[in-house]
Every structure is written in C-alpha cells, then in structure tokens.
C-alpha cells in the first residue's frame, strides 16, 4: 500500500516535471548609474533645444543658434526643402533605427558645410556607439532595375518602406557637401540595418561631395539604383560593407576612401540588381569609380576588399588596395548573374590598380574563363585617392 502510494507520488511528480517547470531566476536590475547619461547628460533648455521628428511638409531652414535632436522618423516631404546651415551639429537620439532623417521623392535636403565648418549628424549619447540611430536616407525618382525603369513604378525602401525609383535620371534630391554622419546603422529588423547614407533611386541632379560616414553599424554608403554622382566620400569603421551598390546604379564615384575597423565586411560590395527581387529593368549596375583607396587590416586577417556579384559592371580607374587577403572576388555564374560576362565584354574592368599587402588579386567564381589581366591592369603609378588632402579638416579619423 505504502509502495503504491509512493509510486503514485512519483508518477505525479514525473508528470509535473514533464509538463515543464519554471526554474527561471528572478532578474534584479540595480539602476544606480543611469542618471548620468541621459541623452548627452546636459539638462534640456526649452529655449534652445528642439526635437526633430515627423514630417517636414514645407521648406524650412534650421536655426544655427538652436540645438536640434532627431528623436524619431523625420521625413522631408515631396515639395519641401530642409536647409541646414554650415557648421551645425544635428544630434540623434540613441534609440535605434526609428531615428532617421529621410528625404522623400520630390523632397530636398540642402546641407552645405565647408571644410572648416562641416555639418555633422551624430549620436546624442555621451558614450556613442555604432548603431545608435538610423542615418540619412535619400529617395529619388531616378531609374532602378527592380522595376522596369521606364515608368513611375516604385519599389519600397529596405528601411522605413518608403517609395523610390522612377524615370527621371536628372532628379534632384538636394545637396550634401561637407557632411559627416556618425554612429548610424541602427537595426531595422532581423536582417536589415540602416546605412550611414542610403541613396534610393537618387538622380544626378543631386550634389554629393565631401561626405564621410564614421563608425556605422551597417554599410557606409549604399546606392540602390539611381544615377547620383558622389565625390570625395570617406568611410571609416563601417561594420558591414563600406560602399555598397545594387539595383542598377549607374552614377560615378570619384575620390572614395575606405578604412576598415575591427568589425567589418567588404570594402565594396556590388550587385548588378536587387537579388531579393529580380532584374526587371534588364540592365545592370555600372558605375564609374575613379580614385579609390581601400585600407584593410592586413593580408593575414582573411579580409576581402571588393566583392563584385549578380552581374554588376563598372569601370574602376586608379585604385589602391592595401592589407587584404583578397582584393577582387567575382561571383555570379549563371545567365541571370553574368558577372564574368561583363569582364569578357569590357563592361567590368579595373584600368589601373596597385596592391599593397594583398595575397590574392582576383578570385574568379563566375564560371567564365578569363585571366587576371583581362580584368585588371596593375599600374605602379596608381595612387588611389588623396584623402590626406581632401579629407583634411572636416573628417574624423
């Protein structure tokens, strides 16, 4: 009898434990340090502190005597222009991806700094980290190849789901000159993060000259199609790809400087089209990149400078690659991703390049047969870009 009783208890206990018990520990968070670090630590002054969030529906010029902090999605609407005077520092609340400045199709940003008075977008945190906030997002009406590119059909942006793309190559989203974007790249979902500056179908009426992305969690600059020409762009310590293009980008990149930090992906990651959708436009990305320097962490660290995939084309002139296991890695083996075919047709070519501390100059995974010299021409006189000169004064190192 007693045995049966014990057995009964044992069975009951087995069932109870079999039902999954909860041995989760209590978590006690001792909050005795938080007050020192509230958004820059300073007290707010209602007279001079302004929060930026929501829609900018009519043109405004920021007041250089005020302190602006972006606290949420801030969107320059169609027809409006946001003008930012030289020398201003726009802070962004360090609360992640939902803090960003986006310029909608038809809207414009005019941020014209100078080398001595750059315009800075940065984290409002006292202890800033990459990914504290979203970043700059420009959306235009220039062609993208995920739609057929001849109509006004649009795609929606990876971040914020805003429309972009169209049939106006000369579209103008404004001016970014002497602008620095710091600590951007907040996560947007389980696979997407904000870039430093994202160009979604931005047209070549837009001026991008002297722009740096510093300490970003994701890519530095990413070009989603469009025709925008960017000059004097620098990316330091981007944790993903420093420069990324896709979706039929056909602008020019002139004088670009990339330097890797401890956490990073490729220097340049280039796709011919958006492989998550399709090449509905029937053409591939083909920018002209002139005066490019990419500095890695050394050839022993297994890094890769430039990844060319999904049929991308492009003309590279005067390139300096230093400190990488691999310099150029070409992918895309089938008819839909004819990266190798671009080499054979001369649409993907590196006209002059110099390698320093590089083990593999070209890795061909395209299935096409060509020699290294078909793709690249080494040039002892290549210099890359002269970042020391044009980056002086306004960039962070």
């Amino acid at each position, binding site marked *: 009898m007693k045995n049966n009783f014990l057995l009964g208890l044992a069975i009951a206990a087995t069932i109870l434990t079999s039902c999954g018990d909860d041995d*989760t520990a209590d978590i006690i968070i001792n909050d005795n340090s938080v007050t020192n670090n509230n958004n820059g630590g300073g007290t707010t002054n209602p007279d001079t502190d302004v929060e930026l969030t929501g829609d900018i529906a009519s043109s405004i010029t920021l007041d250089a005597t005020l302190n602006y902090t972006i606290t949420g999605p801030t969107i320059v609407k169609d027809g409006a222009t946001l003008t930012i005077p030289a020398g201003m520092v726009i802070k962004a609340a360090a609360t992640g991806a939902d803090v960003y400045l986006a310029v909608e199709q038809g809207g414009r940003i005019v941020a014209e700094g100078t080398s001595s008075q750059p315009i800075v977008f940065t984290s409002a945190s006292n202890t800033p980290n990459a990914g504290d906030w979203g970043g700059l997002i420009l959306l235009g009406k220039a062609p993208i190849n995920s739609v057929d590119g001849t109509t006004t059909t649009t795609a929606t942006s990876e971040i914020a789901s805003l429309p972009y793309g169209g049939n106006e190559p000369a579209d103008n989203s404004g001016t970014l000159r002497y602008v620095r974007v710091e600590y951007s790249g907040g996560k947007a979902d389980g696979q997407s993060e904000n870039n430093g500056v994202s160009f979604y179908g931005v047209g070549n009426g837009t001026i991008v000259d002297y722009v740096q992305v510093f300490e970003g969690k994701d890519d530095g600059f990413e070009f989603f199609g469009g025709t925008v020409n960017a000059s004097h762009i620098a990316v330091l310590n981007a944790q993903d790809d420093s420069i990324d293009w896709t979706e039929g980008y056909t602008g020019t990149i002139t004088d670009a400087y990339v330097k890797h930090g401890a956490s990073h992906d490729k220097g340049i990651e280039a796709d011919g089209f958006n492989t998550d959708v399709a090449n509905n436009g029937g053409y591939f990305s083909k920018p002209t990149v002139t005066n490019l320097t990419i500095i890695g962490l050394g050839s022993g660290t297994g890094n890769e400078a430039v990844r060319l995939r999904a049929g991308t084309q492009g003309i590279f002139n005067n390139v300096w690659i230093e400190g990488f296991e691999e310099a150029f890695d070409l992918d895309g083996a089938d008819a839909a991703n004819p990266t190798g075919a671009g080499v054979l047709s001369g649409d993907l070519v590196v006209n002059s390049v110099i390698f320093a501390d590089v083990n593999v100059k070209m890795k061909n995974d395209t299935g096409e047969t060509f020699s290294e010299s078909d793709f690249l021409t080494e040039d002892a006189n290549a210099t890359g870009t002269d970042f020391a000169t044009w980056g002086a004064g306004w960039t962070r190192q």
Partner: protein
Amino acid sequence: MRKILILALISFTQFIFAQNKGTITGTVTDKEMSNEPLPFANVFIKGTSIGGNTDMDGKYTISAAPGNYTLVFSFVGYQTVEKPVKVEAGKTTIINQVMAASGGEQLKEVQINATVSKDKETALLLEQKKATVIKESIGAQELAKKGVSDAAGAVTKISGVSKEEGNSNVYVRGLGDRYLNTTMNGLTLPSNNVNKKNIDLNLFSSNIIQSVSISKAYASEFYGDFAAGNVNITSKEFTGKEMFEVSVGSGVNSRAAGQNFVKSEGTGQFGFYGRYGSNPFARVLSHGIDPVDGGAPIDANFEISAGRSFNFEDNSKLSLYATASFERGFEYREGPAVDFITVFKKSFPNSKEYQYSTKTTVFGTALYKINDNNKLKYTSMFLNNSSDEVGYYGFKGLGENRDAILNTDEGFYQMNVQFNQDLVFVNQLTGDHKFYENDGDKTPELEVTWGIGYNNVFAHEPDRRRVSIENYQFSLDNDPTTNATFYNNNVFDNQRYFQRIIDEELNSRVQITYNASDVLALNFGYNGRIKTRDFENIRYGYNFVSNNIEVDPNNIDSVINLENTQFFQNQQNKLFNIEVFNKIPGYADSNFVSLPGTNENEYNGQLRIHASYVSANITPNDKWTIVPGVRLEYLDQRIDYDVININPNDAGFRKVKEVFLLPNLNVKYSVTDDSNLRLSYAKTVSVPEFKEVAPFVYEDVTERIGGNSDLLNDPSFSAVHNLDLKYEWFMSRGELVSLTGFYKQINDPVNLVIANDATGTQRYFRTGDQAEVFGAELEVRKALIKNEDDQTQLGFGFNFTYMHTQQDLKSTTGLFTATFNRDSDELQGASPYIFNANIDYSPTQFENFKPIANLVFSYFSDRIYALGSGTGNIVQKGVPTLDFVWKNEIGKHFEVNFSAKNLLDPAIERVREIPGSDDVTLSKYNRGINLGLGLKYKF
C-alpha cells in the same frame, strides 16, 4: 430449342405464381434519428429467406404467397421487432415500423461497432443524396474502415480535396486555407496557428468525430466568406446505453528510428512549457541555448473513452460522453534548405530537423434529448498540441551565405531550436426543436435550430533559439587551431524569440424553418461572430564585439552565458551584449548595454459579422427541389498595429465596414430514384485574414513572410462567383458515381508574392483584377464483392479532379509594392490534377474475427506555393501517398490494429522555377514510413 422451351415454361410458372401472391410494403423509420427513414434495415418473413433490405428511403416491398406470417425487422445495434402480418392474394398490406436502438445485452454490439446510423457510410451517402446542397460527408465508420485516425485524413478522402504533406494545409479544388472555413456543429472553430485561418484537422481524432463534411457549394447559412468550401465537423453524439473503452498504441517512424533525438531545453514530454510566467529577458539570462536529449523516438498513444445514457421517467434521455487522449510522434527530416530568389542567398546542402510532437485532447459532450421534438447538446473541447523542433542547417560544413563575412563559399551554419504550443478551448451549446401544428403530423410546422459557441486560443512560440555560425567546417576537422566562429552581421543573427497570440471568439447561429406546405419550406436565419486577436512578440539578439568569436557549435552555452555578457558600458573582456528593439523606456541611452525591452511587434485584430438570411425549399414534385436564398451580411474588420520598420507616415491601423448582399440558388433534379442532377450558383466573398493584413514579418530560417495592411483598402474583399453542375448516381447500397463541373471567378485575388524591397520578404498582395478556376471532378465508389446481405466485402473507390486556373497579374503600389514580369499565371495553391483512391477488404464470414484491411492512395500534382515577381514561382512538387491499415476485431472486447502509413515515402520537395533553366530545390526531404500497432479493449 428444347432448353428455350423449358426456360420459357419456368418463367411462365413463376409468372403464374406471382399472380397469386400478395404484397407487404411499408417504411422503416429510425427513432434515434427523429424518425428519419432507416435504409438497409433487414425485413424478412420469419423462418424463411423471403425478404430483403429497405431502400434509401427506408421502403421495402416483399411478395409472398397468401397466409399468416411473422415479419422480422432488424438492424445492427437496433432492437429486433416482430410483427404479425396477413397476406392476401393480389392485395398489398402496409406495415410501417419504427425502430429504436437496442438496450440490454445487445447494446454491447452497438458499442463494439461504434455505429449509429449517422456515421455509416451508407447513411451519409443517403444524406448526400437527399441534401439540397452539394455536400460530401465521411462518417466515423468509414473513417475507421479507411484507417483514418483524424479529420485531416478524412477530408482527403473526399473528391477534389488534397492535403499538403507535413503541415495542416488543406486544399479544396486547389483553393487553400484562406478560401476555406472550418466549423464544428455549424459554429466557427478557431485556428490553432497564427499563420492559418483554419484549425489543423489533425487535432480532431476519430473518437471525437461523428462525421466530417465538406460543402463545396454555398448555401445561405454559411458565412459569406466562402470560396472553396466549408468543412464541418459534427462532434461525437453518443446515444448508446453505456460504453467504456481503452486503447494503447505504439509505433515507429522509419527515418526517426535510431536517431539521437534532441529537443528544446525547458519543455515537457507532454507538450507543455512552464515558463510563460517569467519575463523573456529573465529566461534569456537563466537558460541556455543548446538543445537537450529528446529521448528514444518511439511513438505512443493512449486513449480512454466512456459514455453513459440515462433514461428518465418523462422519456427524456441524457447521454454523456467523454474522451481523453494523448499522442506523441517523432519525425526526422534530412535534405537541402535553400533561400533562392535570383541567387543563392543562403544555401544549406545538408540540413536535418528533429521534430517531437504531442497532441492532447479532452472532449466531453452531453446530449439531452428532452423528447422526440427537443434536443440540446453541449460540447466542450480542449486541445493542446505541441511541436518541439531542432534544426541543424549546414551540418556538414557545406552551407553558404552570400552575405557571409569570413567565408562565402562554405561553413555557414544555423541552428534553430523551436517549441510551439497551441492551446485551444471550444465550448458550444446547440439545440434542435420541432413544433407540430397537430399531433401525429408527419412534418413539423416549425423547426428551430440554434447554437452558441465561445472559443479561446493561446498560441505560443516561447524562447525560440537561433544561432548562426561561420566556418563550421573547422569544427569538423581535428585541427585545434582553427575553429568555427559566430556570424555577426546583424545582432539578430543569434537570437532568442518570443511570440504569443491570443484569440477569442463568440459566435452564434439560429435558423427557423417554416414548413408552409408539402411544396414550400422557408428558412430564416441569423449568424453572428465577434473575434479578436492579440499578437505580441519580442526578440533579443546577441551582439558580439567582433567577427572572430570562436565557438564549439555543439556547446553554444560555453560562449553564450552570463559570464560573457556585457551589462554595462566599459565592462571589459566581455564577448557580447544582449540587444532588443525597444528598450524599456528611460533606458535607451544609459549605462546599461543589456536590458529587457518592450514588445517588438504588436497587433490587434477585430472582426464583427452580423448576417441574416432567408431561403426557401421549394419541392413542387418528387423530381425537383429548388432552393433560392439570399444573405445580407454586415462585416466590420479592423487591424491596429505597432510594428518595426514600417513607413512612418502609415496610420498604424486599417478599418473597413462592408455590407454584402449574396444571392444563391441550389437546384436538384431527381433524374431517377437513384440519380440526381444538381446546379448551384452563389455569389460569395473572400475577406483577408488578420495575419494577411498585419504588416508584421515572421523570419524563418530560409523564408520571411509578412502581412500587408493595404489589403483592407478599397477593394477590401474579393467578390467570388461560384457555379457548380453535378450529376450523381447512387447505383446501390454504398455505390456511387458522380461527375461535377465547376467554375469560380475570384475578383481582386490575394497572392503571396515577394515584395519589392531589398529584404526578400514575401507579402500578400491583390495581384490582379480576376482569377478564374474551372474544372471537373469524377467520383466512383463501387462494391467488387458483396455478401448475401448485400454488404460490401471488397470495395473500391476513387476520385479525380482536373482544374485549370488562370489569373491576371499587375503591379501593385501602396505601403508595399510588387511588380511582375508577366501578365498572367496559374492560381497559387491549385494542383491541376488531384487523385484519391482506396480499396477496402472487410470479410464477414468469421464468427469472432472481423478484419478490415484498407489501402489508400492519394496524389496531387505540382502547384504554386508563392508567386515569383520578376523571377520564377516557388512550386510545391506533387506528392503521392500510400497508406495501409489493418484492423482486427477479435471477439467482442478486443481489437488489434496495425497500420503502415506513407509507404511510398516520397520526397517532399519545393523548388524555385528558373525560366529557361533547371529548377532550384529549396527544400527536399522524406518523412519516413510510420508503422503502428494498437490494442483496444472495450468493457
């Protein structure tokens, strides 16, 4: 010549004899079924072999020489009745007989056969013959005979129906989950899965089913949201005196056998999870990631059922029935898992998944028969089903990720450890009442049926663990200097995920039938339902300090543990911090780098429907039944959401109110006594589900699926036109041939398509102006060998459906966009060919041994799983299934059952079609053969 003469002579004498005979005729009715005609009852003259069975309408006719006889009426499970009868030459004697279920000793026979007339295949065929709408049913008896253990298996025995292997998706004429409704006793059933509109029919074991029917043609009493059909489960109605039975079974899956099973840490063997009360962040810190031993993969089930009826002095009768069951199963799947849209984004040539699932059912019903005219039924059901799944993707070191950081050519690996638990509560009260103008009237003047139901669903995905690793191949070699490292592109590449859905629904029906005359009956009805859904999820990600954190993939907890967690800024020598989307307010920018958060995504859905209808049953003569009807339905649907990464200008909600006027007509023409011609037209609608409109993205290992709230913009629904023409011939008892042609036009159809953004997310879009479906169904059920009692010994049945579908495609704009590189395509989910066949062998010559053997085959051809936009479609390849079931009743108490299912063990394959090139396999695995042995004892 001489033979002919003799033959003629014999015929002549018979003719002479017949002239001298008298006739006995009459109708046998079933007291248990409200005096409906009882077919196939035996009527014999005692002591002779003169006699036969009643026909479909319960009628019999016997010729006999003049004299005094005793007529014997019998039917299995019913009291045998003897009646004296006098036959006079050339005259007809009418004897009508009511038969009632037997009591006492013979009752056990009822229990053993578990047979009352409504669940008999033959009776359901009769019901199908009599029905005024196109409806096909399968009852408990047929289920048992065909070796079907649940409602999911049941519906696939019905023509034009197919089921997707490995999940709960049911397709009726190629239209899937979103075009179907599931009801129990005519009241809406909730779905147990956020991703589905319909409940998993696997959850309804045969001991809670009286019958399952699919109405493929619309009638006014159905909710207007009807395109493919309505699945109705009539829950068990116990009417015998008492019963008690116990069964146990065990089995094994050919591919699971011998595998070392693993499961989530913290989940119970019975499919429960005890940590819902703890904050997810506390669970992240308290518990590890690595899976634990999952036990030996031996399938098992246990079931206990009891029923008892009480007869009261006032002739009322209360029947109670309850059943509880537990079932567990193991499955092991191995094969490739690939994410390919236009390139190999992720490719795992080798993946393996271990799945341990349980199903617990508690079901009780009380049937109170107040008298012949009034009946109440209370039904309560609790279901718990769980799935404990551990997946290793890229376990041979050959996985590739296009966006890998260290190595894009090999070594990408992911592990997904996931537990899902769904708890479903259903409570229903239904009533049937008849009111007669005069006592003794055959037809009641008024019939009232009503029902009210209250449902709750709790669907949990607690603490899904997912890790991503690069250079996994280094963990397979013996070189201690090279090791696998965590992949850390996004902080959620290594994550803990928590999701909860709570559904609540109140629904009701009432119908009043006024039998105005023999020719005309009018039905007036009301349906209402109020349904709400609350969804929430939260996710924590491990943010590693660098790309080079090494780990042993078999011991994740050696790295991801409290000691290595950075909680504060400036803490040194830590390997990661724990991030969340929405940190608790006030701490977004603080000294803490690992903190709990608030929900990542939330949505709340509300659906209110009120509808009234009127229809008429017009039967001008025996040949024609004409049922015109019209339904007026008010629908109010609203979704409120707060989700990540959405256009900041979006309103955060959509709401819509619609009023539908839905005319329909069902016509039946009885060509002969045994055959009908039916025509049905109805206008119906298809409205989006919560999961389709909530713009929340669920991220699976190789797939992302999200909703699109624009589906509730104008147009907020699809108008559907349905046309069916059916010919059916009931050849004899249990035999049938039917041929159906059908056409559907679905305006503004909804499809799953890759959205035009850079994330590869599939979303729901109204992708065109119109889709059309037309096709034909052929069904044959034939007895090959019958015994002397006209019972089928060897039977054969098959059904075949051919469909042609087409929809136009257009680019869509809105919150999300989709574009196409073509103007039209087939309809998602539609297999051009569906084929089901079965052979039953049930010899009856043994005294104490009743074996039933059954072989069932089904096949559906390739169908679109998701539409490609600028690329090929994702296609589910056709799957053949062959099951064998062998049941043996030994004596009165004992049953030994053997089953061998999925005998062909086909590959379950999903591919991406590539125009002008070979398909890319996205997933491919075999489910294994399931062998089972069960014992049942009936007291």
